[in-house]
């Protein structure tokens, strides 16, 4: 396996551990403000320093991992499930469902910037974590459906599937036992890149004030709070640490997705 993939896996494992054990890892209360402690530089007391209201940035970054991973996992799981189901159904049965999904939904969703749709939906629904997850799922499932539909169309014609059908296997059996396992590999690649996308979108929407409302320790919210000029001047670390957290997380999932894609596609490997 590719070295960068292993780096990615290590970072993601660390991230999951940090998210699960956040209350034990965090050194301070994430919401506790104390104006006499504002803008402190990183020290043994406050590993990442403090922000404009004296909150401990290390603890907030640690708890922020929970929000990012929660959004990523829920969005990817729901989108992948819905997308796989509809994509497999459309690819296997064809007919009017396929015509609606591949003829209309794919074309329309591809012609529309996903982030803009998410922004528009949350703008009208109002900000909040669940609404943000909902909006990201609405734009997320299409990619999985397209991928699975293509795979199903390809695998459906293979000899072993034809043989299974000739032996009298039911449609459900053919789809579940014969076709889907063959389509699962690109799905894992897509899911890994999807995690990167979801983490990024959550941070972006929270940055715009459309995601998790402050004072929740979302990395996007932390960056938004750290970017006014007086905070930048006094405490650039308030911006740098959540920024590194986002970049590392996204980079790790991209490393994994890229590595897996190369591993699964020998044509790419030889390049």
């Amino acid at each position, binding site marked *: 396996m590719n070295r*960068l993939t292993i780096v990615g896996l290590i970072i993601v494992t660390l991230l999951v551990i940090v998210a699960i054990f956040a209350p034990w890892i965090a050194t301070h209360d994430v919401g506790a403000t104390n104006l006499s402690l504002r803008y402190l530089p990183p020290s043994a007391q406050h590993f990442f320093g403090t922000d404009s209201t004296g909150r401990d940035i290390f603890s907030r970054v640690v708890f922020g991992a929970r929000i990012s991973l929660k959004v990523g996992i829920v969005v990817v799981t729901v989108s992948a499930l819905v997308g796989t189901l509809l994509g497999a159904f459309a690819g296997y049965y064809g007919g009017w469902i396929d015509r609606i999904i591949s003829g*209309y939904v794919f*074309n*329309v969703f591809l*012609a*529309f*910037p*996903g*982030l*803009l*749709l998410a*922004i*528009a*939906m949350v*703008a*009208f*629904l*109002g900000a909040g974590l669940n609404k943000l997850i909902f909006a990201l799922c609405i734009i997320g499932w299409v990619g999985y459906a397209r991928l699975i539909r293509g795979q199903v169309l390809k695998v459906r014609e293979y000899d072993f599937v034809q043989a299974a059908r000739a032996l009298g296997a039911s449609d459900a059996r053919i789809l579940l036992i014969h076709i889907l396992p063959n389509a699962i590999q690109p799905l894992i690649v897509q899911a890994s890149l999807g995690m*990167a996308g979801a983490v*990024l979108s959550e*941070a*972006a929407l929270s*940055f*715009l*004030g*459309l995601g998790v409302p402050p004072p929740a320790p979302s990395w*996007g919210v932390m*960056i*938004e709070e*750290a*970017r006014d*000029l007086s905070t*930048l*001047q006094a405490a*650039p670390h308030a*911006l*740098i640490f959540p*920024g590194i957290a*986002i*970049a590392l997380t*996204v*980079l790790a999932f*991209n*490393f994994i997705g*890229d590595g897996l894609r190369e591993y699964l596609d020998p044509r790419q490997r030889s*390049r």
Partner: protein
Amino acid sequence: MRSGFKHKLLSGLRRFAIFLLVVWTVVSLVTLLIELVPGDPAVSVLGEQATPEQFEQFRQKHGLDRPAFFFSFPRDAQNQRHFQWHGVHNRYTEYWVALLHGDMGRSFRTDRPVSELILERYPATIQLAVAALLFAVLIAIPLGVIAGKNRGTWIDNVASVIALVGISLPGFVIGPMLVYVFAVKLGWLAPSGRFDWTDLILPAFTLGAALSAILTRMVRSSVIEELGEDYVRTARAKGLSERTVVYKHVLKNGLIPVVTILGLQLGVLLAGAIITEKIFGWPGLGLLLVEDGIGKRDYRVVQGCVLVISMTYIIANMLTDMIYRWLDPRIRVS
């Protein structure tokens, strides 16, 4: 020959049909989104303290007193839902009719026509997007060619890692960091605003960074692929210098897939511009959408901005598709 023309006509018609379908969907989405607002938009704009007359006047002025769609399922006295037909005098058709006359309604807050607000801001966004695009291409082509030509060496590895890091660093992280370095620390550039041409540098860099990373990877793999083609061997056998082979022959063919990516990425760029404009206080559509629209709950402005950004994206995509077909005759035929 005749069947070729027929084929061309059919595929052209098909693409036009998809275009109309997309436009219809976007406009419908934008008009119906306002129904998602929890509670009454009039209350959320005017506040709880407004008088009933003010609410009534507001609803009447912005057409909110009309039914939303052709039909609805209101509850009757027995709390049962039943079908009710409203006819063509509904907000959905009214928005369409107005839109076809170039009218996007009036701002809930300032009472100015939304189309006027958007026209004021539109040039700034296009300027930013084009600058970011140029910037990305200027970085990506040399970097991608160098990486592709030296594939497998440390130069290639460094270029590839830089590209992946660029993809992973979002604008809202790079942007404020650039503000810190160039505005707060060095004092070379202004942290925000759009007064001088130098004000464009930081936003364009922020917006173009991720795109340049994607393009670098694209150019690299494209160059590697083309270098293995027969015509490259021929060109080399003719005694052409490596420079000519790479820049005249390989790059010309290798750029075709890059053009497609450019078009598709323009949408990402327009959506990214919303964030970049907020970071740098760049007075474009994104800032109008986020601050005046979403921030002040001016739903008409939100509708207009979403509509115009999407339409720009759709039209850019269509143009890309046309350029792509023109560049690569193989696609025209198949």
